[in-house]
């Protein structure tokens, strides 16, 4: 009987030791910088960044492509990478101007396909202002793409918009160096 009481006492002691809980709470805080950026992107299929060359275009063609380009070659002239973590809708705008007065800007055409969200690895969920086709480039800053819901925060890899350009050589002179300036803007204001 004495032995039993001792065992029960030991058991109770052990049981009460097992029930001890020690808890520690750590507080973590993370702060993320605002990202709202635009940069050129190139790879073997996205050829040019700050300058797109059209060297010695053939004026007897109805549409002339940039150097090293051909129709349906699967490449793009340029890519602009739009990054934002502001979680608001953003807009990609484009405008063109020329410092060569004899160049008719209506002859400068662009083609833009659906952008690619590099963070999700899927087509971006935003909206092109015009379906993919050749259009004259706008002279005033004009929205060409509106971010979708997923695009609103697309860090770290951003949304890649690829564009190709072509020149309608109608009326262009030989012996003249034409310069066209393209400005891309990413903005939260439509």
């Amino acid at each position: 009987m004495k032995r039993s009481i001792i065992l029960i006492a030991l058991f109770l002691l052990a049981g009460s030791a097992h029930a001890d809980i020690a808890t520690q709470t750590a507080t973590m805080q993370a702060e993320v910088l605002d990202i709202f950026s635009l940069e050129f992107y190139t790879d073997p299929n996205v050829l040019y960044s700050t300058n797109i060359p059209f060297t010695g275009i053939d004026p007897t063609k109805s549409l002339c492509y940039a150097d090293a380009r051909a129709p349906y070659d699967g490449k793009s002239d340029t890519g602009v990478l739009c990054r934002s973590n502001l979680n608001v809708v953003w807009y990609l705008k484009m405008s063109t101007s020329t410092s060569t007065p004899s160049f008719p800007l209506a002859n400068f055409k662009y083609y833009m396909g659906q952008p690619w969200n590099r963070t999700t690895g899927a087509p971006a969920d935003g909206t092109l202002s015009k379906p993919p086709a050749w259009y004259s480039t706008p002279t005033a800053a004009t929205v060409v793409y509106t971010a979708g819901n997923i695009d609103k925060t697309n860090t770290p890899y951003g949304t890649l918009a690829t564009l190709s350009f072509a020149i309608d050589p109608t009326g262009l002179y030989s012996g003249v160096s034409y310069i066209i300036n393209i400005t891309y803007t990413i903005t939260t204001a439509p």
Partner: protein
Amino acid sequence: MKKILALTLVALFVATNVSAVTTLNQSATATVISVLSIEFANTTDTTFGGNAIPWTSVDPALGNLIKATGHQATKADTAVICKYNGASAAWYLKMSIAGTLAGKVKIYMPQPINRNTGSVTSGTLAYPTPLPDTDWPVLPGTATTVYTAGNDTVNTPFGTFVAMDYGLNPTGMTTGTTYSGTITYTITTTP
């Protein structure tokens, strides 16, 4: 305290409504190769294209302006397409005929058409288009400007369509003789 809180709220509100804008610049540069070319229009647009223009079994009694055999009233006998994109000068179309038909072939030229715009050009024909039922000028034997470009000086990519009909003056031609001639068309920036 209330005032400070209100100011802080206003400041926060303003901060969250500032538009974010980032800009990137790019240029495209273009140069264009020089084009000064002349070619025959095809037989869809003309009766003979670049082929020979025939007069077979000419009846000298029909007068001094006999149209080519197979001539169609709805098409020009032939046409040349002239293309040019030089910045500094106008271009000129010159023509001449050599051979035993020299001096016997007459020419009718309507105002050329700029194929880029589909409209007649403002250039100058050296031999104004003859009125109906009037005689046509004789094609010169030496290279002579027949057309000077106007608003079609730069006309790439599609060029200027210069059409011609030809007529034959059989005066003095003898039966049993085959006559031939070679017409040369030249586009040049030298008048």
